[in-house]
């Protein structure tokens, strides 16, 4: 089997974790598997770099120097702990120093100019992964394995020049990755690739945005036609609900790509939807596993026809920190273009809308936005819409939550909505607003914040998600 394995920042945080990484690699090599490792930055490092950029913008060179020293110290300490061969250790310490020096030059130039462009920001952010990959590579080498670390760009991932959230040019990427990583594998070398970072067509460093390392892993997996992509996390996998809200929540064993994407939209932190795209296209299964608990089977994300549908709903999600905004006025009835105005104003102001609903009476439009943008949104709409004959009132309610039932099994099955709303009604919760996309992968509704936990638990019970045989 050929497997891409991605290790997140917490799964390589200390000596013990890295030893476990080495064990996992050895075990796979013994099992005649070919592995490609994708490495994130150490936990907290990316945040430190972001802090350093902030300090650079205000010209606080002392603070930058402190952060750089800490960066160097932390990585040196970890290298000394995990690299069990003096020659290899000396080499990697040297390499870390060079990387830190390079980082220093770039961040200081930012501090001189007090200006950071998306391009230089990506360049700076890329150092976190380079530092960690170089340590992991050395640790494996000291353990008598043939390894080589490369940046995502060197591995062949080419993106557009949308710095900060670049999208891969998949055809060029496929070809280059096949050549470069394929050659390493043929020579029996284990490639260690930095997650999150890539190159433009002209070899300028870009980053893949949120959840970027997972994306790197799936891009490499798709290019190399691997058998599976394994994402090592610090959780058991995808859950039927947030265990903090529903203690009876279970790990979902199998789930389809589209369900997993849908769950991610509803805040399951496990995988970003775009990260699933490259593998979904080629039907390459993704295993989400817990690096802190190897015995747990994790969640397998795979093509729909191999996933048992089970009951209609596979998980219940909740989005907190949202606000319900209602635009109303009797004059809106039969007046065309009100909705268009509302939403174009929102889009001009970069307000993201999570849910929309308008009854056919047309007397009001309701939608959900994130709570932090609600004051700004209401104010902008008031300036633009009030004072005419159509819109009379713009109201925001901040004490609401979105609850969503997700599952491909509800597709084409009548009565799921009835079950959802009966279950919620039975526990005395009032539903404020409802939306179901025609993909029928989820039913979402809005409730008072104080009712949200009750609603989640009621659905979890109704669809028997607490029974572990859910697959």
């Amino acid at each position, binding site marked *: 089997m050929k497997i891409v394995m991605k290790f997140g920042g917490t799964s390589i945080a200390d000596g013990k974790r890295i030893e476990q990484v080495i064990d996992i690699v050895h075990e796979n090599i013994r099992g005649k598997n070919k592995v490609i490792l994708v490495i994130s930055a150490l936990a907290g490092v990316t945040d430190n770099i972001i802090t350093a950029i902030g300090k650079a913008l205000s010209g606080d060179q002392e603070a930058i120097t402190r952060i750089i020293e800490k960066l160097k110290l932390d990585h040196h300490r970890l290298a000394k702990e995990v690299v069990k061969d003096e020659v290899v250790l000396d080499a990697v310490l040297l390499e870390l120093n060079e990387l830190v020096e390079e980082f220093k030059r770039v961040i200081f130039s930012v501090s001189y100019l007090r200006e950071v462009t998306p391009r230089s920001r990506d360049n700076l952010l890329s150092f976190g992964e380079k530092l960690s990959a170089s340590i992991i590579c050395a640790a494996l080498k000291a353990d008598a394995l043939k390894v080589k670390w490369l940046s995502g760009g060197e591995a062949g991932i080419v993106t*557009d020049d949308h710095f900060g959230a670049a999208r891969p*040019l*998949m*055809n*060029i990427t*496929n*070809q*280059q990755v096949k050549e470069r990583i394929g050659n390493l594998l043929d020579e029996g070398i284990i490639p260690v690739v930095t997650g999150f970072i890539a190159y433009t*067509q*002209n070899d300028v460093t870009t980053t893949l945005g949120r959840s970027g390392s997972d994306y790197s892993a799936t891009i490499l997996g798709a290019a190399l036609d691997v058998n599976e992509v394994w994402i090592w996390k610090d959780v058991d996998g995808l859950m039927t609900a947030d265990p903090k809200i529903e203690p009876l929540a279970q790990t979902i064993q199998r789930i389809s790509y589209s369900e997993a994407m849908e769950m991610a939209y509803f805040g399951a932190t496990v995988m970003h939807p775009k990260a699933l795209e490259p593998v979904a296209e080629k039907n390459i299964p993704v295993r989400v596993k817990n690096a802190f608990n190897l015995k747990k089977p994790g969640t397998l994300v795979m093509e729909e026809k191999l996933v048992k549908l089970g009951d209609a709903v596979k998980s219940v999600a909740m989005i907190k920190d949202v606000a319900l905004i209602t635009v109303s006025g009797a004059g809106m009835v039969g007046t065309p273009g009100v909705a268009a105005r509302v939403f174009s104003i929102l889009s001009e102001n970069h307000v993201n809308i999570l849910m929309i609903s308008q009854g056919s009476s047309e007397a009001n439009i309701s939608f959900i936005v994130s709570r932090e943008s609600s004051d700004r949104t209401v104010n902008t709409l008031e300036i633009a819409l009030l004072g005419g004959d159509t819109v009379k009132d713009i109201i925001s309610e901040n004490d609401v939550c979105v609850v969503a039932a997700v599952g491909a099994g509800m597709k084409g099955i009548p009565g799921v909505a009835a079950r959802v709303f009966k279950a919620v009604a039975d526990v005395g919760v009032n539903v404020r607003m409802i939306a179901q996309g025609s993909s029928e992968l989820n039913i979402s509704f809005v409730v008072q914040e104080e009712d949200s936990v009750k609603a989640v638990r009621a659905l979890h019970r109704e669809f028997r998600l607490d029974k572990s045989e859910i697959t």
Partner: protein
Amino acid sequence: MRIIVLGFGNVAQPFVKILCEREKELSGNFGLKPRVVAVVDRGGAIVSSSGLNFTRILEAKKLGKSVAADTKLGRPRTTGMEIIEEVEADVVVEATPTNIVDGEPGLSFIKAALKKKRNVIATNKGPLAIALPSLMELARYNGVCLRFSGTVGGGTPLLDLGKKCLLGDKIQSIKGILNGTTNYILARMTEARVQMDDALKEAQAAGYAEADPTYDVKGIDSACKLVILANWLMDRRITIKDVNISGITEVTLNEIVKAEEEKAAIKLIASINGGEASVSPRLLPKNHPLCVGGTLNAVTFTTEFAGEITLVGHGAGGVQTAGAVLRDLIDIKRELSL
């Protein structure tokens, strides 16, 4: 429109000649004012940002072995890469010799030109066979055209027929004879009952085969063309590695005679359907539409609505291919003035 010509051999020379002869017509009918701002060959380059005099380029070539021999505008030892980087142009015509091992130098030329946002017309199959999906993506991303009509079927508009005349229809499979040289060899063996070596020598004497016929007889040329057809017309992102190739080298005179007795012929057939892409000698009934003689090419498209369409025509030749380059140039002009 400013044009850089890379490689000045049996395609690029007739192309420049056509531009010269058709100047008025191109400008009158298509609003196309071609200015060749640089020509590069093995020996170097000839450059003029305001456009070279067509006869001057051809003269310079006659004068020495390279266009760089021009005393005033010639730049000996200047490479194609340098010209792409330095000379402003709208279109780069890539006409260097085919190399199927790594596609170079054409592959680097095309990539560099696309990255500089130049439209590219390629007549060189090597880079396309190796990296067509990537190159198409690179062109799309940089917002420029990549055209290569001359690479398949020479003057016969195979690529355009499939792409433009069948809009909305879906090509389900492609099957055909894509190499004139091997078709000639097989036809001569059939007609004159000669051994393959002799037929090959005849083909070389008639100018139908290169001094090194390896790419033709091993089926590689056909495979390159199949890759291009599959990518362009069927949206199949394959490269030459995905084609099962066997050439005509194993075909014996005996087999041909035996086929003839059964009212059939052995033809080197390239084909792709839903699944596999392959090039191999296959037996065809004599009355089959693909059973063409001489150096002819013939291709059958099977489409969802129109059914089977077979196109027969002359394959590659300098003038034919040059004509295809002109088609591409006019097409690009139209795209640019949209």
